[in-house]
């Protein structure tokens, strides 16, 4: 099929256009999303096409509008709620943790909850401690939530379509640093199944698991590692939960080494979950201790040099992978 090159922002926008045209129960709810097209311009043009009844601008009241999205999902609509930054989950966490996540269980499956909460993650643009966090681990620790972190335009569009069609609540995390990242997409933006990882580089010496922006840093590191004679395999989990443990285990059984690079929390985070799952299922295949590279256990710093130091970069990945393969 025909391919074109889009940015992640454009791919998400196109996916929303297509989904809303196909299903008139899909509505969008959030701050500045209608006329303004969203602060990251992901919803641009939707209001002109679908009108104010389906593109709902709200007051700065995350608890009320996330909760309204949950209630609307319980009663027949398919809301796509934009939570501008995942840090803002702090002001509406009850509606995410207790209401969205638990409703299907509490109904024992009688209720569907086709809710997508689109939000952003990712440090690196000087936004400071309260507009830069990557809270995928936090969301993933709550039973009932599906968590998606796409890294390229085709995945972003395909996974968003799947998330909208899914019967349960999905936290869809867009990395602020990747909105302008370009990549090929197939015409029609085919849906991509939730819960499926993708091997973005094949290799034989070490498995690197890295989602969202960290996948790009891992790919950059792989080039350097290759010139040093180390063949690294890179897996983009794409969906944080449910995690495609099988794909990661298969890779580790081949390479014998696991490095998880993640922008989430350094303690009890996504990297720890991957390491625990692989240790439990493929311990005998591990030739050295599995490792993780995460930011330090501090909030995201503001000053550019400090923020640069805070995020794992490709040099850190090269160093860690080299140490592991030499051990």
């Amino acid at each position: 099929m025909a391919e074109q090159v889009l940015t992640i922002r454009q791919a998400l926008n196109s996916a929303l256009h297509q989904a809303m045209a196909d299903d008139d129960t899909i509505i969008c709810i959030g701050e500045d999303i209608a006329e303004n097209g969203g602060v990251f311009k992901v919803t641009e043009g939707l209001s002109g096409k679908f009108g104010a009844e389906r593109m709902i601008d709200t007051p700065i009241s995350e608890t009320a509008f996330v909760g309204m999205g949950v209630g609307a999902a319980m009663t027949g609509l398919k809301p796509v709620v934009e939570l501008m930054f995942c840090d803002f989950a702090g002001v509406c966490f009850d509606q995410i943790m207790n209401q969205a996540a638990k409703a299907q269980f509490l109904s024992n499956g009688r209720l569907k909850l086709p809710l997508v909460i689109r939000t952003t993650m990712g440090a690196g643009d000087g936004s400071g401690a309260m507009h830069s966090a990557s809270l995928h681990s936090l969301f993933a620790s709550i039973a009932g939530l599906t968590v998606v972190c796409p890294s390229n335009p085709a995945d972003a569009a395909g996974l968003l379509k799947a998330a909208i069609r899914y019967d349960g609540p999905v936290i869809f995390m867009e990395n602020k640093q990747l909105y302008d990242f370009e990549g090929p997409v197939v015409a029609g933006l085919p849906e991509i199944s939730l819960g499926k990882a993708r091997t973005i580089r094949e290799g034989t010496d070490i498995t690197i698991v890295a989602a969202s922006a960290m996948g790009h840093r891992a790919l950059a590191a792989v080039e350097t590692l290759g010139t040093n004679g180390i063949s690294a395999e890179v897996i983009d989990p794409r969906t944080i939960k449910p995690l495609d443990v099988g794909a990661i285990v298969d890779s580790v059984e081949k390479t014998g080494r696991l490095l998880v690079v993640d922008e989430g929390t350094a303690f009890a985070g996504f990297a720890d979950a991957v390491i625990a799952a692989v240790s439990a299922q493929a311990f005998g295949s591990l030739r050295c201790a599995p490792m993780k590279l995460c930011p330090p256990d501090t909030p995201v710093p503001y000053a550019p040099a400090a923020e640069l130091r805070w995020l794992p970069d490709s040099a850190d990945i090269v160093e860690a992978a080299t140490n592991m393969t030499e051990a």
Partner: protein
Amino acid sequence: MLGSCRGRTMNEVALKQYQSCWFIRSFEKAIAVQARAGNVPGLVHLSTGSEVADILLGQQLDPTRDHVTGSHRSHGLALACGADPVAVAKEILGREGGLSDGLAGTQHLLAPETGFLTSNGIVGAQVPLAAGGALSANTAAVGGIGVAVFGDGAANQGAVLETMNLAATLNLPMLFVMYNNGMAQTTAAVDATSGSYCARAESFGLTAWSADSDAYTDCLKTLRDAVTYTRLGSPAFVEVTVSRDHGHYFGDEERSEFPPSKAMACFAKWLSEQGVKDQLLNTARCAAEKDAAAAVAAAASAPFAAANALSPWLGVQGGTDG
């Protein structure tokens, strides 16, 4: 609902409502007996004292197009909306065949087929959910409304205040019904709330009413007017004065100096004044007591939900369960 009672006199309709109120009171009494006997897994928050408000509100609503959410103290409201009493009792008692097969319990009653979407374990959290019900009703354009029922304690939650503003700015067909029972857990409303509830709602642009459930006709008219107004497409607020005849939870007898609810006695007195004979009142009450006792007894004789009630939920998120 009353409009659909053609062929029945006002007194007949009211007598039936009176019987329904007694059904809720007797149901809660039977649940209390089960709780005292240790047959309830956790604590229960009984709705004894708000029966008249529950029934009069429930009868204004239409299960085919309205969406109602309630608080942790919503056994009576769920019944008033038409939830199956045996299934409600089984859920409260954690039994097989409960609304959610015992997985949810007393604070999370879901009977969406009746319009009673959910009650809630978090004070005030049900209110934004009802805004979603109102949004869906608005989109469906069949004259449905969202109704959030919450207490005076929840009135101080940001979720409630945010939702009043949101409902007003979006002009949602949403009715906020605040039961004022004078107590937020163990703190008196007068010690916890500044200003007037109705004035708050009005300041957000909502039309606001207040009513006392001790006054049957006034409470009925107010709720009917508020639902009718909301159905025309705008948000509204009603403060209904009710009682709470137990502590915060059953067995918590703090503040027992509060006088017991008068609403049922006032309702009976009003019916007598309309010429309904005492014998009919007694017959209605006895029938309700018998029916409620039978429903709770049926639930109590059912087995507790087994551990495998959880089975359908294991592994649904990637087999990462222990």
